[in-house]
């Protein structure tokens, strides 16, 4: 046991520049991928929340249904196939077009994959905002777009923040599949180290520890942000909302 721990520490010490380089790539890809994925999700999710209305003309109706069908296909395909398959497929499919580096391809794949999940998260968030507020917004003359951006989306994002944050944590771990297209992330670097010294269990102990530190820290930070968001938006103390209260 002591020998095992010793070996693990030795590997960490000796190869830390490689682990560190891999960690940076992992963080870069998962963070950028989550942010772009969120942007895709916001767009697709809010477009999908637009319903066909009885007053819509034939043209509007057809366009809305077409968009709905296309986004459904996107979501089903990307949620229903493994990201490792998506990465190899898209990397080689689009290589002649973009002539891209694996890291860039990795960010693209994580973004598009995350976007599919985010779209469903945002759609659920939109549905969690009660319909009455939409009616109220429409009743003062807001357009469907204004209603979405001024009233519904801010609340939808807040309501689905835990799920959005969770996608980031998932991406930190799942970006490891990008080693299939030789993205030099933490896992790719680790497997290189392990293969050269032929100590797989010991090396993966280092790797797992780094992943754990990343996900644990991220979860804590997200939890703190969530707590702050949970407070009433203004700094107006609740006691002051009661007239006649001594502190008023």
């Amino acid at each position, binding site marked *: 046991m002591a020998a095992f721990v010793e070996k693990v520490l030795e590997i960490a010490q000796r190869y830390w520049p490689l682990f560190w380089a891999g960690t940076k790539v992992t963080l870069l890809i998962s963070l950028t991928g989550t942010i772009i994925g969120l942007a895709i999700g916001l767009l697709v999710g809010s477009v999908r929340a637009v319903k066909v209305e009885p007053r819509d003309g034939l043209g509007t109706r057809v366009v809305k249904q077409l968009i709905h069908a296309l986004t459904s296909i996107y979501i089903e395909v990307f949620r229903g196939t493994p990201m490792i398959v998506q990465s190899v497929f898209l990397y080689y499919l689009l290589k002649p077009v973009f002539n891209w580096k694996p890291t860039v391809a990795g960010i693209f794949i994580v973004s598009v994959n995350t976007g599919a999940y985010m779209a469903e998260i945002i759609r659920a968030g939109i549905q969690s905002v009660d319909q009455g507020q939409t009616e109220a917004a429409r*009743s*003062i003359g*807001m357009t469907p777009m204004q209603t979405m951006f001024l009233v519904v989306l801010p609340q939808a994002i807040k309501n689905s923040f835990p799920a959005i944050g969770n996608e980031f944590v998932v991406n930190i771990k799942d970006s490891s599949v990008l080693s299939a297209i030789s993205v030099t992330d933490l896992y790719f670097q680790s497997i290189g180290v392990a293969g050269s010294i032929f100590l797989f269990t010991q090396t993966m102990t280092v790797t797992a520890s780094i992943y754990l530190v990343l996900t644990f820290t991220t979860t804590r930070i997200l939890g703190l942000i969530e707590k702050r968001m949970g407070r009433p938006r203004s700094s107006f103390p609740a006691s002051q909302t009661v007239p006649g209260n001594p502190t008023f």
Partner: protein
Amino acid sequence: MENIIEIRGLKKHFDKLEVLNDIQFSVAPGEVICLIGASGSGKSTLLRCVNLLETPDAGEILVHGQNILQGRMDVNQYRTKVGMVFQSFNLFANMDVLKNCMVGQTHVLHRSKEEAREKALYFLQKVGMKDFLLASPAQLSGGQKQRVAIARALCMDPEVLLFDEPTSALDPEMVGGVLEVMKDLAREGLTMIVVTHEMGFAREVSTRVVFMDKGVIAEEGSPEEIFQNPQNPRTREFLSRYIQS
């Protein structure tokens, strides 16, 4: 005087249920119309048809003589003229009280921030909520929320204000404050259509009472006519149940 709104032959059904059947209804400036009737009689649906939150199946809604159900009518523009106060308040939860009253003015009517703020302050003062500008809706009681909702609607300078059971979701001790605000508005000559179960309010404030039953207007008239001398047996039955309970 010319009617602001004139409804002719309005029909609406949800699936197989006939909710409104051939409604004729008009609103003149300064009228305070109370819609009364049992639950499911179609009063709320009628109100929601007036600002097109529900789309009628058939009929005409003439606003200053122009049919809003026909052609390329700008629904959003029309809705700014017809305010609505809901049973469940429906304040925007992501905005404070002041913002709730300003957002429509700045984004729909394109007023300047200063002008919108001034107007919001004026109406919040009027409904007695000026001390709560920065409170979020979650911090307010039901009665306070409803008064803010009324101020929000008034800020758009509507020609007609619709109330959909504005006091039904309130604790009994909150009802009075909201009804007071509504009475003030009625006295100042605001045109109002109120769906309500508050018979006292209907009797005291309205200029016309409309009794709805099973999707039709069964009887309408002055409060005296409806409450003291109802002609339709259904009206009598409905009111007697109210007086008993």
